[in-house]
């Protein structure tokens, strides 16, 4: 099968490639003229057209050169892959098993590293703080991973459940004086309830509808939070949300009540609270991971993945597809809500600004880039996505642009995600290379 393809690709001459690259460059020129070449600038209240022809020329040249190089590389790789496919042996299966064992090992290493991190950096507030942010995204990513990675449903409004959890805790604690640990499961359940309300009508239909419904829901929650001032504080948000306590001992400067520092006879330090918060989110993450990994081995978890692969076959086998999808979606919503509670408790202040579509997009990018269905991949992706903007502020400007591009490229290159476990354990040798 592969034989003639290789010859055609290998036989592409420089002229053919240049012609192809020229065509692409022409399209780039058409795309670039209105966006790169022309822009409007505000000059004294009226718009003026500004031209950027040198940048446009550079852009078109870059596309031309890039297409030439990429085409060449793609042809080369294609040849190599065909050659490799021919020499396919049964060692492939053993390699997958070995890879899985290594993933488990790396996971344990990461866990031990995470446990020791605050001890190693006990005097560095910034490191522990950033690590906490990473863990929040890990938690959000794992929650969304159940929906997107395992059940194969596209949830574009995960941030809505995050917001529901955060506001639920903020209101329960500031209005009714509930503590963090009591509000945590309740807020999670409230978020799950919202998941049920949103998921039930849309999940009876094809999965695509869920995507747009969640997209709309994320936007609606934000609109309501901004406009319903009596309820949510409007754009100003909710302030002075109580922080979690250590079994009733607050992290405060010494006072009459027993505090964490005075109870253990330590000198008061604000670092205690940061380290404590870090361990709280670490525990939440570990619980989430254990919970989800266990669920995956239960019938419901297997049903998620089965529905993702073939809905019609599942229906034929008597699986209630709607309920299976709904369970995944509601579980994801609940985990998002729990992460929201932690976020509110950690910040002490929340406003609708923290829950924009961009946030949903970042969480989705974490799941997609990390490899859908892979727990370790989510951790790596969160690390990269949180740390990169910390390294340079310039990068933050281009961050979303890069995420969007990366999402497209990864879908084209590896639709299962980089570190996916989607590949079946057993497969026919001929199927190699085709997902």
């Amino acid at each position, binding site marked *: 099968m592969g034989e003639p393809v290789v010859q055609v690709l290998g036989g592409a001459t420089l002229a053919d490639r240049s012609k192809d690259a020229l065509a692409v460059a022409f*399209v780039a020129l*058409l*795309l670039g003229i*209105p*966006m*790169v070449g*022309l*822009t*409007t*600038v*505000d000059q004294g209240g*009226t*718009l*003026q*057209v500004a031209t950027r022809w040198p940048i446009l020329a550079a852009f078109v040249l870059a596309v031309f050169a890039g297409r030439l190089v990429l085409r060449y590389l793609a042809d080369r790789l294609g040849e190599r892959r065909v050659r490799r496919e021919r020499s396919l042996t049964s060692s492939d299966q053993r390699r997958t098993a070995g890879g899985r064992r290594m993933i488990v090992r790396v996971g344990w290493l990461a866990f031990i590293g995470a446990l020791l991190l605050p001890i190693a950096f006990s005097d560095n507030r910034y490191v522990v703080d950033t690590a906490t942010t990473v863990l929040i995204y890990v938690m959000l990513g794992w929650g969304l991973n159940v929906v997107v990675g395992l059940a*194969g*449903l*596209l949830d*574009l409004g995960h941030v809505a459940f995050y917001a529901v959890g955060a506001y639920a805790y903020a209101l329960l604690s500031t209005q009714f004086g509930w503590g963090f640990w009591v509000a945590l499961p309740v807020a999670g359940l409230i978020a799950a309830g919202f998941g049920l309300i*949103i998921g039930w*009508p*849309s999940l*009876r*239909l*094809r*999965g*695509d*509808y869920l*995507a*747009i*419904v969640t*997209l*709309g*829901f994320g*936007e*609606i929650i934000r*609109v*309501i939070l901004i*406009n319903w001032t009596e309820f949510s504080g409007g754009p100003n948000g909710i302030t002075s949300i109580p922080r979690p306590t250590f079994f009733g001992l607050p992290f405060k400067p010494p006072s009459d009540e027993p505090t964490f520092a005075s109870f253990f006879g330590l000198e008061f330090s604000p670092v205690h609270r940061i380290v404590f918060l870090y361990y709280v989110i670490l525990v939440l993450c570990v619980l989430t991971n254990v919970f989800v990994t266990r669920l995956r081995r239960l019938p419901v978890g297997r049903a998620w993945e089965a529905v*993702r692969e073939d809905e*019609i076959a599942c229906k034929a086998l008597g699986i209630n597809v709607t309920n299976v999808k709904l369970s995944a979606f509601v579980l994801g919503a609940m985990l998002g809500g729990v992460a929201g509670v932690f976020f509110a408790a950690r910040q002490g202040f929340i406003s609708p600004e923290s829950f924009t*579509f961009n946030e949903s*997009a970042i969480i*989705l990018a974490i799941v*997609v880039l990390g490899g859908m269905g892979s727990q370790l991949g989510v951790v790596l992706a969160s690390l990269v996505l949180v740390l990169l903007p910390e390294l340079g502020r310039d990068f933050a*400007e*281009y961050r*979303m*642009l890069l*995420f*969007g*591009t*990366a*999402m*497209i490229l990864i*879908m*084209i290159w590896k*639709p*299962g995600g980089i570190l996916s476990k989607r590949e079946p354990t057993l497969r026919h040798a001929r199927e190699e290379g085709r*997902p």
Partner: protein
Amino acid sequence: MNVVKNKKWESGKCMALALQQLINGLTLGAVYGLIAIGYTMVYGIIGMINFAHGDIYMVSAFIAVSAFTLLASLGITSVPLALLTVLLLSVLFTSVYGWAVERTAYRPLRGSTRLAPLISAIGMSIFLQNMVQLTQGARVKPIPPVVVGGFDLYASEGFTVHLAYSQLLIVIVTVALMAAFSYVIGKTSFGRQQRACEQDPTMTALLGINVDRTISLTFMLGATLAAVAGVLVTVYYGVVDFYIGFVAGIKAFTAAVLGGIGSMPGAMLGGLLIGLVEAFWAAYLSPEYKDVATFSILILVLMFRPSGLLGRPEVEKV
């Protein structure tokens, strides 16, 4: 006597207000309808939600802003000439965007998993939004009014029903475009190919029709309609920013679902209904929550009539 007069005045004002909202709603609805057709056509032919479609519309609005400013600086003051030039330029460039989006983000994924093109589409939407934000700036772009003036249709004590020329323009262009579009889909050979691909791409390919080309043209046609919508909105509102595609996209998709996804008259009908609901909701209930109203319609339609007003129930064959 006094009471009767007062009542008459009230009802006159009520009617005037309702008439005004009807005009506003139909104008808005025409724009939603034009965008919704792009969603419904793409859904019909490759069965996916093209999340980037709202952003295509936004790109077109930006092209319109640049083109209007450019024409003004060249000293072209004739309104019909300027409008026509901007429409043509916008359609030309935006359809290239539509083509490029399909070619780069969707075609490589044909035959892939169900989720892959959706994620790729949302990636494309994020990309377009941020690309425009970076190249054109994040601030709102205002242009001087292009089409000014209008008719006063009906004046009741204290309230005048106003039909702006720009609103009339939107309705006329939409009707003309719908007529042309129905002709293209219904009578030309491209339209036949397009409908054939919707029904059975494999069989269509076996009959010697280039399915890839037809899909590309469908995207370009959808982008053309979105481009016209973008120009019209720019003329109507006079302000544009990189975020308009997101909300308009959700609403237009709701319109497509309401009308029955896959059905083109349905998309237009859904668009008009959504526009009317939004206008009346904003006028009588609360302007802040008009987006909530649209969204509730989406949920209600999905719950009670998932195939929409004019759509056929979806049957999935193995």
